[in-house]
């Protein structure tokens, strides 16, 4: 029996989604062709666009399909034409490496600081600035005060991009309520396939210069024949995000944390005092390195990750926890992330395995000390 608790890295594809993908792979035409086969493909594309738009409360014409969250972030940062980029210290590498960023610090709970943004904008000037803040962090799940940050940014004339990749499907998402100018989505984080995402514009008429140039696809915002099966799968995934799913995950996650706090002395849970995604728990025991923990848990059939899984095999201290001032504890952080098919049995498996691991570590520690 194995427990997959690494949904923030990638979430298994939902069964309904697989069917939608298989169906779309059977659609023959190119959506840009004018004949019947092309028009059928176009219809599927536009229906999918409407589903994504409805999911975030945007206009269908504001949805630009991309190859994923990383491309959506790159498009936002390069395409909005703002010379100054301010990004929070805990952004995904695809944001932090897309531009020379002025860093907006976070507090000890991992929340971006409003006053710091005010100061940065006052110093740098807002008219030529883009502020990029994620809605929820991928490692800690900490939710950012995006609406407040946006009000500040807009007051200075800055534009706001929001990486909503981790939040989508776990929090209610409304682009108008957030007030941001655009947000990034990724299908495979919410039960859709890998290789597809979107940049959603609040105002479809805002100027976005394409990162990938060529044909007039995506209203000339993103050239290239559309990934039709991926896009259809993305739409199927957002259609199946269930009401109450977030509450269900929150109950499981809170149970997990409660059990561990009782069983494991010295346990730290990052961001526990602030608003977090309902599915994420980032925890650490001093001295128990994350790499050791992840390997031991893996042998016990529990799949979680150490910090972010995006670094393709590289082991480096998490920039997110470091920004929160975690110090050496950053190297001990284990991320547990639940998803649409997680069960109480998965949580129990983790609690049991982690508790046993922490006990062994404690005994070893005591032996070393003696």
């Amino acid at each position, binding site marked *: 029996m*194995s427990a*997959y608790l690494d949904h923030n890295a*990638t979430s*298994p*594809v939902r069964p309904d989604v*697989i069917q939608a*993908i*298989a169906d779309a*792979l*059977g*659609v*023959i*035409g*190119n959506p840009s*062709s*004018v*004949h*019947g*086969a*092309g028009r059928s493909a176009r219809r599927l594309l536009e229906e999918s666009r409407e589903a994504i738009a409805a999911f975030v409360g945007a206009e269908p014409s504001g949805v630009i399909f*991309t*190859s*994923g969250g*990383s*491309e959506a972030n*790159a498009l936002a940062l390069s395409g909005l034409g703002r010379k100054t980029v301010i990004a929070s210290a805990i952004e*995904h*590498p*695809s944001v932090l*490496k*897309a531009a020379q960023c002025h860093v907006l610090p976070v507090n000890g709970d991992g929340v971006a600081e409003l006053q710091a943004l005010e100061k940065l904008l006052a110093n740098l000037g807002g008219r030529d600035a883009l502020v990029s803040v994620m809605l929820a962090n991928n490692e800690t799940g900490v939710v950012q005060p995006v609406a407040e940050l946006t009000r500040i940014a807009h007051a200075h004339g800055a534009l706001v991009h929001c990486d909503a990749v981790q939040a989508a499907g776990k929090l209610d998402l409304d682009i108008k309520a957030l007030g941001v100018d655009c947000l990034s989505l990724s299908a*495979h984080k919410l039960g859709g*396939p*890998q*290789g*597809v995402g979107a940049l959603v514009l609040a105002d479809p008429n805002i100027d976005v210069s394409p*990162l*990938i*140039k*060529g*044909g*007039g696809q995506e209203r000339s915002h993103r*050239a*290239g*024949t*559309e*990934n*039709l*099966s*991926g*896009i259809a799968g993305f739409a199927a995934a957002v259609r199946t995000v269930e009401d109450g799913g977030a509450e269900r995950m929150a109950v499981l996650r809170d149970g997990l944390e409660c059990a561990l706090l009782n069983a494991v002395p010295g346990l730290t849970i990052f961001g526990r005092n602030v608003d977090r995604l309902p599915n994420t728990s980032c925890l650490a025991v001093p001295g128990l390195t994350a790499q050791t923990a992840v390997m031991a848990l*893996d*042998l016990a*059939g529990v*799949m979680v990750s150490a910090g972010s899984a*995006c*670094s*393709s095999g*590289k082991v480096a201290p998490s920039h997110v926890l470091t920004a929160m001032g975690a110090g050496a504890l950053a190297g001990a952080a284990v991320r547990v992330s639940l998803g649409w*098919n997680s069960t109480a049995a998965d949580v129990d498996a983790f609690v049991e395995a982690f508790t046993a691991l922490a006990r062994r570590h404690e005994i070893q520690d005591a032996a070393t000390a003696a």
Partner: protein
Amino acid sequence: MTAMTARTGKTNQAKHPIYLDYQATTPCDPRVVEAMLPYFTEKFGNPHSRNHAYGWEAEEAVELAREQVAAIIGADAKEIVFTSGATESNNLAIKGVAHFYKDKKDHIITVVTEHKCVLDTCRHLETEGFKVTYLPVKPNGLIDLAELEAAITERTALVSVMAVNNEIGVVQPIAEIGGICRKHGVFFHSDCAQAVGKIPLDVNAMNIDLMSISGHKIYGPKGIGALFVRRRPRVRLQALINGGGQERGMRSGTLATPLVVGLGEACRISQEEMESEGKRLTALRERLLKGVAARLPEIYVNGDLEHRVPGNINISFAFVEGEGLMMGVKDLAVSSGSACTSASLEPSYVLRAIGLDAEMAHTSLRLGLGRFTTEEEVDFAIDHIVEAVSRLRELSPLWEMHQEGIDIKSIQWAEH
């Protein structure tokens, strides 16, 4: 044509409309779909997926696909970077090289008949201060090698020439172009979206340094492609998408395992069947051309017939009006020589570049044949085209005048 027709490739009776637009996109081969589907499901369903076994499985699958893609172009697997498609590959290759070497070199050479994404990328680079030479083509659609060589300067960073044109199917002298580029120490990029799996390609024999590959043009899925980036001598690129550092830093973002597997399988099948399929499609194309030409006078083949990919023919039908022609062949899914841009019909820039006037460009059809095209479908297409064109010509005063021997070009049209 329904999905099932494409999948089985068998038709008891020809289904209408018949898909003859294989240069626009190809139906995903059922063998490719079959290879892909387990990678959507087995990850979590497989009890052996413990201990990251699935992770290893996925990685193994990606690396196998990388080898399959490399094999069809004679490259090393380490030289393959997966992208979201040939458009991204072209953008990455051209912008990537231009930006990386911009301190020493600022000149790019390309051709007027390249795909729009190559031309748009080059035009964009011009706004950044790069100089671009757009080589013309001869009336047969091929470039003049002497002209290419003369255009190279010590400031030239990159030559970008497609192997096979998407509209007229002509095959450029890629090996000769590669030889010239290597001799002058200039990188050679080739957009091979329409060439891979259709003509033999060897990046070493042809001295190609960067090559763009598309999945959906070779019966793979849409949304996946690759860029070949030579390691010796090493070509360096500035990435378009940064982040997690996947694909050796040249292209960040989570790899879409099922799509990658689909591209690999599509390459494997195409490589295996290239020779026999090439012969079959050449025969079908000849049948189509002969069938139409035997019954219709005043038709013109656009682009060289000899240096041409098997599955493409592009014909202009004189004395027929373009939109009428498209409406007339409604039982065929084909493309015309017009691109619909902002509600006005623009004649194809490729056809204009080989010397066609606007009318002859408008009145052309691109007939793309492929893996699921049958002889029966070709015969239907011949009848359908002949009937449509004959009917349109009967209604055409120009055709009547031509029949009477009046030279249309000599007429002085009155202003209205």
